């Protein structure tokens, strides 16, 4: 099942990924990273389709996307 891991210290809480996610599976944590930003987190792993849009949007390369077996290829990146 596809999913993302978010580096909570690289994330600066800009929320662009949360807005960009077509499945609306990302949200902002109540915790803060090393720089004091609320970091983004995966709130509904089951509905993640591994489309990488969040990672593409992220200005801080804080998001890594992984998948199992077949993965969605909406576009070539």
């Amino acid at each position, binding site marked *: 099942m596809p999913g993302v891991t978010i580096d909570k*210290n*690289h994330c*600066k*809480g*800009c*929320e*662009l990924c949360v*807005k*960009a996610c077509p499945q609306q599976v990302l949200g902002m944590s109540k915790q803060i990273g*090393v*720089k004091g*930003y609320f970091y983004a987190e995966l709130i509904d792993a089951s509905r993640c389709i*591994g489309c*990488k*849009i969040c*990672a*593409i*949007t*992220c*200005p*801080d*390369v804080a*998001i*890594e*996307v*992984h*998948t*199992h*077996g077949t*993965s969605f290829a909406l*576009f070539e*990146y």
Partner: protein
Amino acid sequence: MESKEKIIFTRPESLTDRITHYCPGCTHGVIHRLVAEALDNLGVREKALGVAPVGCSVLAYNYFNCDFLEAPHGRAPALATGFKRLRPDMIVFTYQGDGDLASIGMSEIIHSANRGEKFTTIFVNNAVYGMTGGQMAPTTLEGQITTTCPQGRNVAQTGQPIRMVELLAALVTPAYLERVAVHTPQHIIKAKRAIQKAFKYQMEARCFTLIEVLSTCPTNWGKTPEEAINWLEDDLIPYYPLGCKKDPESLERDDGAV
């Protein structure tokens, strides 16, 4: 059948693991990644040479895994010229902001382009001086408020914003000039293709290549990252139409927006 977890998106090797100093939501970070991905995909990291400007991206050398020079304000194209002429086998790129390239460095970029220097310039246009705290830049829009035009840019006194790609396209020397944007995933994907194409042309020693990247500056635009994304779409792009303005392949200009 136990299927192995596969990583389908991760940090490119040409990008270091450092947390950048850029503001939250600033798309400099995206552009850095696109350049790093191009270096990785083309397998040229180990023979790449970046030239950092003076501006927000003055510290770019901390974020790339390749050799770097740090240029005086506006002079990156001259450093790149000097380096590339002596090492044509290396892949040389300058990474510059609009204050660096379109203001103090205008002479250097125009003459490098006109000589057809075989390096690649990544020109980040966010319509403001970022590092120094949000002053008016040559690319600041009419009426746009900055710390040095608090009543909004008065073009009667300061002239109109400069469209660099179109200006350089007027030169006769062949070049690949394209303006892209990085405010939405769709635009980022197109920007990646343009940046990679620019580096490819350099590998073929084809022509001078410059990609102008419209980028956000939430802090100095006084907007949230998301509002900045919208402002770029609604205000910047109409004045700075996206698209390829010059390509050695076709040589006829495509003025259509994306």
